[in-house]
């Protein structure tokens, strides 16, 4: 019986990991969706909408797969729409408000560089479905990273005002980056930092000295910003449980 208990514990931690990565992608998709019709130019409006859709698609695939492994009949909608804030396991970085465009792009840079490494590692998974999802998400993350890097360089190395805003964004969001390396998933903080430093150097932006880091998202302890986001996203299912169209 010990064997079967171990198997259950293992599949439980696999489900938790899939849900955590799904939550990162869902919450960021919802955040990016807030830009639609508000982006600084039409091309960017379309870009942010497309990127949000990619993250949403990754979340859906991960939730569906988590539900299949768990075997309790939970669907992607159960994970997205019928869990409370404390059950969400996303990192604090993705739930941070969009702020100005520089904030959104710096947040994207930090997260995209993390996901490029994350998916590369998971592509080697023995779990074929996860490996396929990761291979696809990896291609998308690399493309997203081209976009966010180009914008951070353009803003950092742009006008005095764009530089000031980009540096403010780096200073404000840096404290949420340490959490990316606390698992689940193996991502090297050294590789991540090297990739980020290359972009920030080119942009003429500096990394803050402040060593203070925030965490807790992976344990369901969130900043004050997640609740309102979920309230808006889940409103329909909470008000009309099981509603379909």
């Amino acid at each position, binding site marked *: 019986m010990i064997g079967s208990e171990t198997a259950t514990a293992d599949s439980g931690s696999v489900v938790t990991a899939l849900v955590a990565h799904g939550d990162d992608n869902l919450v960021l998709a919802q955040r990016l969706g807030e830009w639609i019709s508000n982006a600084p130019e039409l091309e960017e409006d379309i870009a942010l909408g*497309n990127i949000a*859709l*990619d993250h949403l*698609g990754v979340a859906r695939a991960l939730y569906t797969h988590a539900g299949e492994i768990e075997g309790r009949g939970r669907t992607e909608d159960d994970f997205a729409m019928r869990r409370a804030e404390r059950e969400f396991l996303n990192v604090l970085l993705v739930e941070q408000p969009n702020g100005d465009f520089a904030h959104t792009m710096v947040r994207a840079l930090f997260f995209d560089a993390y996901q490029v490494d994350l998916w590369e590692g998971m592509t080697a998974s023995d779990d074929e*479905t996860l*490996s*396929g999802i990761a*291979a696809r998400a990896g291609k998308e993350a690399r*493309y997203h990273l081209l976009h966010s890097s180009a914008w951070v360089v353009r803003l950092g190395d742009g006008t005095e005002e764009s530089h000031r805003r980009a540096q403010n964004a780096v200073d404000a969001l840096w404290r949420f980056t340490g959490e990316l390396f606390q698992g689940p998933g193996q991502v090297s903080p050294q590789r991540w930092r090297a990739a980020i430093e290359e972009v920030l150097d080119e942009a003429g932006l500096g990394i803050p000295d402040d060593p203070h880091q925030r965490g807790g998202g992976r344990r369901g302890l969130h900043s004050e910003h997640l609740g309102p986001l979920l309230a808006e996203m889940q409103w329909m299912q909470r008000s009309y449980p099981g509603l379909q169209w």
Partner: protein
Amino acid sequence: MVTMAPAGKVELARSVASGVVDPEIPVLTIADLGILRQVSWDRGRVRVTITPTYSGCPAMRQIEDDLRSALAGAGLPDVKIATVHHPAWSSDWITAEGREKLAEFGIAPPLPDGVVLCPRCRSSAPRLIARFGSTACKALMVCSSCGEPFDYFKEY
């Protein structure tokens, strides 16, 4: 009532499924795009296997619905449509015929070594306008020779 043998049903299903077009690029079928992976007989019914392209492609659900109604229209109402994530779809899977159809339609197809040819004048010196275009799979380019703005089906 004529009862068709499973082999005949699979053949029919394959030919019907191969004709279903992509809702966003209707000059291409899902077979041209490489989305249609397999048509087989499984536990007493036809099984159609498809692989999603981009994670964020909103056309996938539509393709599933279109497959279901095309097959039902051909007398095959009881069909299992399975989504398989492995191996991940690649733009390499677009057939040669599919690439030609794209170019004729005015969308530059993905070519080896990242070459992008203007679908109007065939010049190979385009400039990127926007990495993200009208659908998840396309970027927006402009030809440096003839000035034509065009969609590029991204290498993926």
